[in-house]
């Protein structure tokens, strides 16, 4: 039985349709992340799950029960908000027990719950402070404590880390992951940060314009994107999209890319990644998707030969990130991004020889932006 099931949910504000026929099922204990650019409807979907906004059509089931028209209080869910939304007039302890108090949980059990979550989140010394006396990270913990105290069926996280500074965000990310592994809770988590989505989720739902474009594991969404939008949204730096022309026949397809010279760059398409759809596109333009890490440097110093087609080009910009090196290199009229190891000695303006690993390349139809192979 699904912990949460969403069936054909629609939501309109006036004449604009914010959610367009969303269907989704989440297993108990699953960590699902809704990710997408702002305005994609992910927060609206979250509010609909919470019962804070009614849906225009469709059904919503929690633990097999239809909750479409139940109030937030009747849904057995807890939510962590972006602004934390702590009650400013109450102490941390009162913030945590408020939900239990409203639900008339006996005092002894309430105190037990406070002790449990305070220890879990290491906020025991803060219990008698007011929210205004806490730092951002501490407020975040209290907000999670408030949700955890009630042990509901589903936890909702609405961009919980976006108000924290970069370092704290990474720390809390790890903490949320640990918490999920330890407690095995069902979580729906909204973010616009694709790294958060990749690192935390069991499954990711990539949304755009009120639709779920792809629902899959982080690995599927990253390596097997459904369309150009998903491919470009997931991953940083973004995937390179290269205009190419498909040639050849089944078993020996190849892509020719105009690189400005007399001879186009010819890249053989791996036979194991062929699809029946390719036949109809021979001789037509296609969009080739290559992630920055699908390139490697052909370097005599390294000795060992790397598989892949050779690409001779020029470096334009070098951006060292410490762990590795991001290069912008020329490809005909345009530029692409390449990720190399930190040992690379690439210099701006100098020629560079790269190997292209086609075994993980993806191919899109340029008009519809849908996946071809």
């Amino acid at each position, binding site marked *: 039985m699904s912990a949460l099931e969403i069936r054909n949910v629609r939501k309109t504000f006036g004449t604009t349709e914010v959610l367009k026929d969303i269907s989704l099922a989440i297993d108990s204990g699953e960590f699902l992340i809704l990710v997408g650019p702002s305005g994609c409807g992910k927060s609206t979907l979250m*509010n609909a799950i*919470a019962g*804070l906004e009614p849906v225009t059509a469709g059904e919503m089931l929690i633990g097999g029960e239809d909750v479409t028209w139940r*109030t*937030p*209080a009747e849904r057995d*869910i*807890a*939510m962590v*908000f*972006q*602004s934390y*939304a*702590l*009650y*400013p*007039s*109450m102490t941390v302890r009162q913030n945590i027990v*408020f*939900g239990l108090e*409203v*639900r008339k949980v006996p005092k002894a059990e309430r105190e037990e719950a406070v002790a449990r979550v305070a220890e879990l989140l290491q906020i025991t010394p803060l219990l008698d402070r007011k929210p205004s006396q806490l730092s951002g990270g501490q407020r975040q913990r209290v907000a999670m404590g*408030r949700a955890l105290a*009630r042990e509901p069926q589903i936890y909702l996280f609405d961009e919980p880390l976006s108000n924290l500074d970069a370092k704290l965000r990474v720390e809390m990310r790890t903490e949320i992951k640990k918490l999920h592994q330890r407690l095995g809770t069902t979580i729906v988590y909204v973010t616009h940060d694709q790294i958060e989505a990749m690192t935390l989720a069991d499954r990711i739902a990539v949304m755009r314009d009120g639709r779920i474009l792809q629902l899959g594991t982080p690995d599927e969404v990253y390596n097997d994107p459904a369309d150009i939008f998903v491919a470009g949204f997931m991953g940083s730096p973004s995937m390179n999209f290269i205009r190419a022309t498909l040639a050849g026949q089944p078993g020996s397809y190849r892509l020719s890319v105009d690189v400005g010279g007399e001879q186009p760059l010819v890249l053989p398409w791996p036979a194991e990644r062929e699809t029946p759809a390719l036949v109809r596109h021979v001789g037509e333009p296609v969009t080739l998707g290559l992630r920055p890490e699908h390139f490697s440097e052909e370097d005599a110093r390294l000795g060992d030969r790397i598989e892949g087609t050779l690409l001779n080009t020029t470096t334009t910009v070098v951006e060292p990130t410490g762990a590795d090196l991001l290069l912008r290199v020329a490809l005909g009229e345009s530029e692409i991004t390449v990720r190399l190891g930190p040992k690379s000695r690439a210099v701006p303006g100098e020629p560079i020889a790269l190997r292209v690993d086609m075994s993980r390349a993806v191919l899109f139809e340029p008009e519809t932006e849908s996946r071809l192979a």
Partner: protein
Amino acid sequence: MDNIIRRRTPGARLLRAGLYALLLVMALVYLLPLVVMVLTSLKPLEEIRAGGLLSLPDSLTLAAWLKAWGTACTGMRCEGLSGYFMNSVSIVIPAVAISTLVGALNGYALTKWRFRGANLCFAMLLFGCFIPFQVVLMPMAQTLGWLGLASSTSGLVLVHVVYGIAFTTLFFRNYYVSVPDEMISAAKLDGAGFFRIFWRILLPVSGPIITVSVIWQFTQIWNDFLFGVAFAGFDSQPVTVALNNLVNTSTGVKEYNVDMAGAMIAALPTLVVYVLAGKYFVRGLTAGSVKG
């Protein structure tokens, strides 16, 4: 010392001296009536008749204050202002409390439980702020008659509550707009309902705006004369009406010192309220306008 670097040329200094002199004169002009009132109320009647409005009293006496409070004649009765002062208190306290509470509930509903037509509803309430007192006199008298509340304290309380709700709703609505909606959503998810959210979450953070509303309503209702003179019964007249009667009742000699003392008594409560809570008033009026 203020925190500005100024030019230190002689001309600039002269200009500043002139500026301060002008400000001082203006302040004196504004203060003068109050000074005259206080001085006159503390003088014996003979000294006043001798002239010298601004001269300091030779002998200080509280006799005029005591007479105004306890024995001065207001029309046919000669029991001073004390009874009417208490009338005002028993009108003001329930009227302020009820209008503030209703305003808070209105503001809460208009911002946190937005219903279809909430904006129209608010616009119409706002309209109430601009209706002059005189316009509603006749219909209000009629209504009070129908309700059986004519010439009673409860009737006056009702009039002031009805008239005050427009203002208090405006105050609370604008204050609650700046309270994050997520806080209310969190309380809803915690299982709290309309009134519990109001009492437990919203009201505890409403201190500044409650102060504004109380000061505003207290001043308005305490100082009201028109509704008092129109709708009060013989036993429920507020102190403002009694002051008018006191000043207009002549028993041969015009007792300026008693008149002034009476005026001071009638004006004192609003001054006290402002002195005690004034800084919250200013703070509350600007609350939410600057993030912080």
